[in-house]
């Protein structure tokens, strides 16, 4: 299976850059937790703000971990190293290559999310993280991995990857239900932001964490994003004239 070849390649990269990847995954979310959660002591909906923040930070970490793992890797492979040529000419079906990228990227995102869970364990918030949480994290990771694939096919230079992070990922990090509820936003903007994948993920993670459960619509929306981004990236890799 070509998927396994790509996963092997991702595993090799993870093992080699283990410390760098781990540090990159935890530093920014940890700062958010310290500054917003522990530094500025406050409450939200009658509960410690940290209880609101942690599920959002876990979702955010899953997003950035998955996105950066795929966007950076693919852009460099395609536009700088030209290593994608090796894949293109190989008999590995290209959809399997993409699937490997998505699964690998999502696992990297889950790793980043799990690191935050481990780091917040001593705080004893009473939040619940179970199988559903991991399923939501994985699904969120696949959405942002496929988004990264789409953007890396659109990139004209390998330096575009950090730009996409600045244009798309950073605004989502702050606006999509991570630090404050989308309910606080003005009409119109609220609906748009609430429909974004990170808002859905944060909402579902928070629902599971508080023991209230989550709406299946969140899952449906994430799956819809996943299908749309997957179709676009498959179309790109098979039909784009100049890769």
């Amino acid at each position: 299976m070509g998927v396994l070849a790509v996963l092997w390649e991702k595993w090799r990269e993870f093992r080699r850059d283990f410390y760098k990847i781990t540090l990159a995954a935890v530093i920014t979310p940890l700062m958010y937790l310290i500054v917003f959660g522990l530094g500025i002591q406050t409450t939200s909906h009658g509960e410690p703000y940290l209880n609101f923040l942690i599920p959002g930070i876990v979702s955010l970490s899953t997003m950035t971990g998955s996105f950066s793992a795929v966007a950076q890797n693919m852009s460099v492979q395609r536009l700088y190293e030209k290593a994608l040529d090796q894949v293109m000419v190989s008999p590995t079906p290209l959809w399997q290559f993409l699937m490997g990228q998505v699964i690998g990227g999502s696992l990297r995102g889950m790793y980043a999310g799990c690191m935050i869970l481990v780091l917040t364990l001593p705080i004893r918030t009473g939040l619940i993280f179970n199988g559903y949480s991991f399923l939501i994290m994985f699904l969120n990771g696949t959405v942002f991995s496929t988004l990264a694939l789409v953007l890396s096919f659109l990139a004209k230079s390998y330096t575009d990857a950090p730009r996409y992070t600045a244009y798309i990922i950073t605004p989502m990090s702050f606006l999509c239900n991570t630090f404050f509820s989308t309910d606080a936003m003005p009409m119109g903007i609220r609906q748009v932001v609430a429909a974004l994948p990170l808002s859905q993920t944060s909402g579902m993670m928070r629902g599971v964490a508080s023991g209230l459960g989550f709406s299946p619509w969140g899952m449906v929306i994430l799956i819809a994003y996943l299908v749309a981004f997957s179709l676009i990236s498959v179309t790109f890799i098979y039909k784009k004239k100049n890769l």
Partner: protein
Amino acid sequence: MIEIRNLTKKFGDFTAVDGLDLTIGTGEFFGLLGPNGAGKTTTISMMSTVLLPTSGEILIDGNKLDRKATAAKRKLSVITQEYSMRQDMTMDEVMEYQGRLYYMPKKEIRRKSDELLEFAGLIDYRHRVVRHLSGGMKRKLMVCRALMTEPQILLLDEPTAGMDAISRRQMWNLLRQLHSRNITILLTTHYIDEAQSLCDRVALIDHGKLDIIDTPEALIEALGGFAVDETSEETLVCHYFKTREEAIEYLEKAGRDAVLRGTTLEDVFVERIGRRLSQK
């Protein structure tokens, strides 16, 4: 067998390859020659499916080559002009990744990898990361990687570019050995002597169009097998003759600033392509 039919590639208004028709027989060593920007690399890129043709098609043993053609792609290996491999991998990892992409069993990957790295004199550097290798070592590694999967067709885009004279000769010998194993080889090169030494047939292309196609010997014969270089203070003018006698007769009249030699494929290239370029 490789069949290229009316292959055209346009980038906006610019036509890089313009209705190219070629047939390369099984086991043939075929050279694609042309000046910079002639469309050689674009042709190889279409054969490796990184670029899709604007029109026309490529057939491998009768099957259309495109991005879904896994059976046709299994027969191919490409050595690109650039060092197209992960720079953060070790040599061993580059070889293993290639083997995995071609579904080779792990034991077989190990065996072939050992054999090829040993053969190329790279075995002592197998744990070295690609970015820390010299240009020549990277080239050799690309050859090893391409041979890992025992391809039936090898596409070589400027395989000796940037190599020193000794490494180039080593590469030539390696390519001859591969040719003797009945591997079909398509070579693009700037070094015309390389094509003359290695290729069964060559095609000259210019501005994406096929100019002429034949064996190096026939092309040289058509121009004249003997050349007289006549030098003045500013220029070198070559005259070509069918027979040695004609050449000697001219040489005697020309005086002492003239030299007799055998015509080369480079002369053919310069006469056909270079003259056209200088006229423009």
